[in-house]
């Protein structure tokens, strides 16, 4: 049994006169202790997917429905809202993109850490403080005792993200969802934070759902990769497979667009066009209008996600054969 099993997740937003579908029939699962990356351009539905697993989407205007979202065999959708808190922070934790705004500005770091710990373990204030101090030390914050008394505005963005990580790890969750944890940070600390997350997961045998648009990060931290485009998974494979033999033209394009992989003198590769608004998703292949590889069928019929052997799935009529990012 997988730790998390998402079946046919659909997410829409109520807007103007209709429901805009931003995520369509999304299915995937995460094994215990595995790190899975969800990759895609901004606006393709990655973050709402993460939020919907935690049931943190604000509905309305959002609207979600799924055949099932099983966590340890139990359907999250069946849990009444008043019991959801037992799951959040305890079994599944989340780290957000914006460390600058994700901490309450008027409450001390200590208070924000201990309230999580006390909520889930029911321990005393003193025990919780000791635990919070340990957590801060674990995520590499110097002088943790003093830091507990400080407010978020007294810390840098990197420090705050460390606090967020400490908070997320403090109750030993089984699954950590990291929603673009390094995007808002300085390039110099991005690596440190990513390593911190990957390390913590390995040590605690914790599963990780890493959401990012950065292929470099994927290579460092993930075991398995899901590439998402316009609300659908277009390719899913192990991290080796994705980097060595990307089959979907979109994945291929993404890999070619990483600066530094192109040969000198070659023009820098970009995927033409941009992600369509959910209002204009095509009925056929959603990537076809931007695809260099599209054939006639691509414009007429919607492809399904199919196994092409070895746990490699793609959604494409005309995949790149023996694809190479640097062909």
């Amino acid at each position, binding site marked *: 049994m997988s730790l998390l099993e998402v079946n046919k997740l659909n997410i829409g937003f109520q807007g103007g006169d209709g429901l805009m579908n931003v995520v369509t029939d999304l299915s995937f699962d995460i094994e215990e202790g595995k790190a899975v990356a969800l990759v895609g351009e901004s606006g393709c539905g990655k973050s709402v997917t993460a939020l919907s697993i935690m049931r943190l989407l*604000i509905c309305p205007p959002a609207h979600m429905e799924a055949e099932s979202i099983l966590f340890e065999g139990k359907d999250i959708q069946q849990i009444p809202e*008043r019991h959801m808190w*037992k799951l959040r*922070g305890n079994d599944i934790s989340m780290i*957000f993109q914006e460390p600058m705004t*994700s901490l309450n*500005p*008027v409450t001390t770091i200590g208070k924000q850490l201990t309230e999580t710990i006390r909520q889930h373990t029911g321990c005393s204030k003193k025990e919780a403080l000791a635990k919070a101090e340990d957590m801060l030390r674990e995520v590499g914050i110097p002088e943790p005792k003093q830091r507990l008394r400080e*407010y978020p505005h007294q810390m840098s963005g990197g420090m705050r993200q460390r606090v967020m990580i400490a908070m997320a790890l403090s109750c030993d969750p089984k699954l950590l969802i990291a929603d673009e944890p390094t995007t808002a940070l300085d390039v110099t600390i991005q690596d440190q934070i990513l390593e911190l997350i990957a390390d913590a997961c390995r040590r605690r045998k914790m599963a990780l759902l890493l959401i990012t648009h950065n292929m470099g990060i994927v290579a460092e931290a993930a075991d398995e990769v899901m590439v998402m485009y316009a609300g659908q998974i277009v390719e899913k494979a192990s991290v080796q497979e994705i980097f060595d033999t990307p089959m979907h033209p979109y994945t291929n394009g993404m890999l070619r667009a990483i600066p530094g992989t192109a040969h000198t003198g070659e023009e820098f590769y970009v995927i033409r066009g941009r992600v369509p608004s959910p209002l204009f998703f095509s009925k056929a292949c959603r990537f076809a209008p931007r695809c260099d590889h599209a054939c006639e069928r691509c414009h007429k019929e919607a492809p399904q996600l199919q196994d092409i052997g070895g746990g490699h799935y793609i959604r494409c009529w005309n995949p790149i054969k023996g694809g190479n990012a640097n062909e």
Partner: protein
Amino acid sequence: MNSGLKFVIKRLLVMIPLLFAVTLASYLLMTITPGDPMAMYVGQDQLRQMTPTQKEQRREALGLNRPIIVRYFDWLDDILHGTFGTSFKTGQPIEKEIGQRIGITMSLNIITLFLTYLVGIPLGIYCAKHKNGIVDNAVMLYSYVGISLPAFWLSIMAITLFAVKLKWLPGLGLSDLTLKNPTFWQEVWDTIKHLIMPVGLTVITGLGSMARAERNLYLDVINQDYVRTARAKGLPERKVKWGHAYRNVMLPLASEIGGSLAGLIGGSYIIETIFAIPGLGAYSTNAILDRDYPVIMATLLMSSVLVMVGYLVSDILYCVVDPRIRVQ
């Protein structure tokens, strides 16, 4: 040093030149108007009985022959010693008359402010939780009706209806002078009855805007990332609201108390006049209507001081509730 204290001291230092400017402005405004400035010191009736030589001697003694700047500093010196001169109309020392009136005006405004916040905040939060519902839309319309009603007209209408026609409430003043040897509770009840209309009307007209402001604040805060964090880490909804949302909703309110108080003081000029409440507002209005210059100068100064105190209290409150200012 505590940076919060620093912040408050800095605000205080800004206020000193402002206070100075207010005194200068009110002095200049009054000295350029016609009339013998000596009347301020000896009273108008006495002035009329004096012979020209007496006047000249008195003028000399009071130092009124000296240049205007020197006289301004004399006046300032008097104020610092607690003397504001004599009212043209009553011949009484102004500081005596002003003292208890300030108390009345301030208590009235504080009660009004308290009640407005007490009802407005929960109402605003309710509206935010049921955004675009019937109550929310009704409150939105109601807030604009509240702003649009002329306060003096509403007061007159209320007095006519409740005091004259229905005789439910007393219409004027703050206490019933016909009450003979009232007990303590009788006196309290009497005061409450007198306060219902002036306070109630101000609360009713201001309530809508207050609730609207609170609603928008709440909607702002509830969509903040840190509220989502609080949910994500597994706090039950009750703790999310009380621990993270409400507190941040209260923050901006603290900084607005000063502005609200200034607004209420501005409104008290007409409200107090209509309800014949012996407060600073009615006192100022009557002084203006009677061209009672020494009183005008004193009340202008005192109203400004009250408003400044209001802003200062706001600053202090803001410091207390928001660590971003308190701790650097």
